[in-house]
């Protein structure tokens, strides 16, 4: 069951306490450790480097604001940082007015030349061709929910309504799809490395 003792001696916990009170050195340390990951993920979600840089600044402000909620018993610091990052990027995508319309989601969503793909989809095509290929290996349901929830920022309930599937099915498909995508990419990397 839940471990009640807070690990105050945990270095990451202490770091985030210092970040929470706005200590500049602590924020700099946090940046040095995680900026590369945060930037890469921002670049994956957003349309260009300038937008990604803006997002990184906003994300570190959000990390400062939420630093006192970090609990090392529940997650490692990198997990927390990436969670805040992903949430911020998804919020940012959701705030954007340009979103694919409902009727654009046909059986060949995102692949039709007549569709107006979301900027993140453009990025997906242009920057990560291998990733796109991996996505194509997934069953259609998994591919659809990953595109809509992960890359286009739709909520799981919205995706559930769009594809007329129960919420639980969407969750399962998304979770399995993300894991399969990761396994696929890991396998590719090991093949390339051999």
């Amino acid at each position: 069951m839940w471990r009640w003792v807070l690990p105050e001696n945990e270095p990451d916990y202490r770091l985030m306490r210092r970040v929470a009170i706005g200590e500049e050195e602590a924020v700099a340390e946090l940046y040095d450790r995680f900026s590369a990951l945060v930037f890469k993920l921002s670049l994956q979600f957003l349309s260009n480097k300038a937008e990604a840089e803006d997002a990184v600044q906003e994300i570190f402000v959000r990390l400062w604001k939420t630093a006192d909620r970090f609990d090392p018993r529940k997650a490692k610091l990198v997990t927390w940082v990436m969670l805040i990052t992903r949430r911020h990027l998804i919020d940012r995508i959701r705030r954007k007015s340009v979103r694919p319309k409902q009727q654009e989601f046909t059986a060949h969503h995102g692949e039709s030349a007549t569709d107006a793909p979301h900027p993140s989809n453009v990025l997906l095509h242009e920057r990560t061709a291998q990733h796109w290929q991996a996505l194509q290996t997934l069953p259609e349901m998994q591919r659809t929910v990953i595109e809509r929830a992960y890359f286009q920022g739709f909520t799981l309930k919205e995706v559930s309504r769009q594809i007329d599937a129960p919420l639980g099915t969407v969750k399962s498909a998304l979770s399995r799809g993300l894991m399969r995508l990761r396994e696929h990419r890991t396998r590719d990397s090991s093949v390339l490395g051999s």
Partner: protein
Amino acid sequence: MNDSPHNYSELLELAVLDAHGLLDPIESELFNRSFHNAPASVQDEIVRLQHRLATDESLLPSDLPPNSLKGKVLDAVAKAADNEAKRLAPLALIGARVGAARGNINTTGSVVMWRTAAMILFGATVVLAILSFDSHRTAIEFSEKVSSLQALDFIRNEGSPSMVETLTNPLSRIVRLEREEGNKNGYIRVSIFSNLNDPTDPNVDDTAEYVRGEAFGYDLEVGAVVIIRGTTKSGEVIDFARITASNSMVPQVFKIPKDQLQGLTIVGVDAKTGARWI
């Protein structure tokens, strides 16, 4: 997994979605509850799984951030901190109001006139001189009470009713810190709200992991930076808050894990000189 709304496989599925930031707030809360209720081995498994997903760069581009970005990030955080301080700055007016109220009473013409009249009419009678002094003191006390009520109303209206609870709760643990040596002007008041649900017993509320605290710096030298530092019973030293004096009254809210309250001692430390406030 007693009282858990999710079984093992659902919990792992949700852990994947949570790590990707894909759960909405309610689902995230349900997941957290299930996580807390899960056996330690499952918790460890989830922590490891989420760590693997968080550090997985296989789906990410290889670009690195430009060197100039670090400065921008530090500036953005500093600016956000300043804005937060400015948002709370109206509270500093309360101190100014108290000062003004005191000043008005000291120098009001009517008070002077009545004093003079009293002096003329009753001359050197010692008894009435004492009465005059007493009435003056009472007026100041009354003024301070009115100002305090105005201050509490102000805090309440500015959207921080919990701060009023802390300030007015007689069971709040309050520490007044003054410089150990040197200039005795200004002080810091640290309030720790023992328990929002039952202030008589800090250990009753099992659901809250933290208690709320507030530190107020009064009449500190402008630019002074004081760290509020606690030492736990076991000797652990923890910095809870940092006060940067930009006004005559500087508020700072903080949280303290409940399990650190027992035997906690609190001091202030000047961030620039290391001088202590006790």
